[in-house]
């Protein structure tokens, strides 16, 4: 029976340990979930916030803007990350913009195509154009990478081109931005759309992708900043109730000047409140 005793003792110890640890940890933890566009920035923000407030822990999880809204409503997350303007059904939440970002079309770096018109883009995504030759590229079939239903990047894209998701004839459906970048970087004939910030960040680090010029406007941070790039949206932090305490501190911190370098390092455009 000795082994039973030791298992029993271990169980009790573990329960006690978890209880003490959890009471110790619960009050100083911030949970952020939502948009995969904002997540890399939020991780950096969290890191700096932790260094300024010892004992605080910031956990960031991705999953899409809708998840951010869901989790915030259910109270699983303290702060939701939502890219794009809140819809009318989401007005129960408090939104705080922390940056601006664009949605850009990406292709593999070896693709000779550098610019596409809106008509061409609509043609490609609705399946009327299926070969790169038709838009000035190599003779190869286009592999279309689309985002999964419910992603805010998809919604911004559809709204801008006035398309319905059912019209898009995709070959691969993805979730996070990074997944799209990964697939496009591994497939020379793929085309997709992702957050400009995420794409520029990875392109600069040597991932073989490039952002296409859309209707004559280059997809750059500068063009998002000066408003000439048409497909841009705000990146928001949302809460269920007006923020207080640690949550308020974090949101204020994220919107302050001292984080602009972090925002710019992710190729987003900072918005300032102070």
């Amino acid at each position, binding site marked *: 029976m000795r082994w039973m005793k030791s298992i029993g003792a271990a169980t009790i110890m573990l329960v006690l340990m978890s209880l003490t640890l959890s009471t110790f940890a619960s009050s100083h933890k911030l949970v952020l979930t939502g948009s995969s566009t904002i997540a890399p920035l939020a991780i950096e923000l969290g890191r700096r916030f932790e260094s300024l407030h010892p004992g605080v822990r910031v956990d960031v999880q991705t999953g899409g*803007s*809708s998840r951010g809204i869901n989790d915030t409503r259910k109270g699983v997350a303290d702060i939701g990350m939502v890219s794009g303007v809140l819809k009318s059904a989401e007005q129960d939440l408090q939104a705080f913009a922390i940056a601006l970002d664009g949605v850009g079309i990406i292709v593999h770096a070896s693709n000779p195509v550098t610019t596409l018109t809106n008509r061409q883009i609509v043609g490609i995504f609705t399946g009327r154009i299926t070969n790169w030759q038709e838009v000035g590229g190599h003779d190869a*079939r286009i592999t279309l990478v689309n985002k*999964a239903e419910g*992603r805010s990047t998809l919604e911004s894209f559809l709204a801008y081109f006035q398309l319905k*998701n059912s019209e898009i004839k*995709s070959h691969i*459906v993805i979730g996070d931005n990074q997944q799209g970048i990964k697939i496009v970087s591994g497939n020379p004939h793929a085309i997709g759309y992702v957050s400009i910030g995420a794409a520029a960040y990875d392109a600069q680090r040597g991932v073989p992708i490039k952002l296409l010029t859309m209707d004559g406007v280059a997809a750059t941070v500068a063009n998002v900043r000066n408003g000439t790039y048409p497909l841009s949206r705000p990146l928001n932090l949302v809460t269920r109730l007006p923020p207080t305490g640690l949550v308020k501190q974090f949101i204020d911190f994220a919107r302050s000047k001292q984080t602009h370098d972090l925002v710019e390092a992710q190729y987003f455009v900072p918005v300032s409140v102070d």
Partner: protein
Amino acid sequence: MIWWKHSISFLSASIDRWFSAALRIGALLAALIMLFILLFLLLESWPVLRHIALMRFFTDEAWHPLEDQYNLLPMVTGTLYASSGALLLAIPLGIASALFMIFYATPRTAVLYRRLIELLAGIPSVVFGFWGLTTLVPLINQWHPPGASLLASILILTLMILPTLALTSYAALVAVPKDYLQAAVALGLSRWGMIYGVALPAARKGIVAGILLAAGRAIGETMAVLMVAGNVVQHADSLFAPIRTLTANIALEMAYAMGDHRAVLFVSGLLLLLLVIALTIIAAWFGKTHHV
């Protein structure tokens, strides 16, 4: 006077009673979990079951939950294509592996091969998916874009269930009494005659059980398929067309689905569960009626 300082028999009888009660509580908990899961799937999908006719999940135009179109059929066929394709490939290979280990290989090779298969049985499905994503998909892409396709998911699922099939068939064949085989050899049957006429029929029950187990795993597999299938909701018209399975659909959209969309995902979970329960019932029926 050693014997009856005290009688502990009464004590141990009551220990038995307490022990049994504790065990009952444990078993009750175990059984309740299944009810919990079922109850909760029903609860979560109830809102949508109440106002959307059941037929719409099969007759709507397509799967666009945000446009109020909830056709689950392409994902059901995707699941069925992928898992039946994988079974079609894996069953012959698995049984061949088992036969090889028992009847064809030298003892040393057999052990070596079994170790290899056991090692592979321990490889997590996500690693198979990862390998498929980095090796298989680019290969298929060169041949026939886009690469992420029904074919890729069939191949990955095959690799995943092959070790299970090989090991269960092996166990079933090993359990065939040596006397049968000796009698067959004594009657002058050739090797294949003995295998086909005696060994396989005697081991059939175990092999079928293994196949159903593998089928369950193939239908339920999520991540490996999610990684290589392309996840486009459509009826596959060729092996190279991307597909989406029921499980991948849940994994892909659950995190940010809301309202009806979320409830429909639970409906697809329910559907998946029913599919698999049907499989178990078939297995039970098969076990009852078709034993040798």
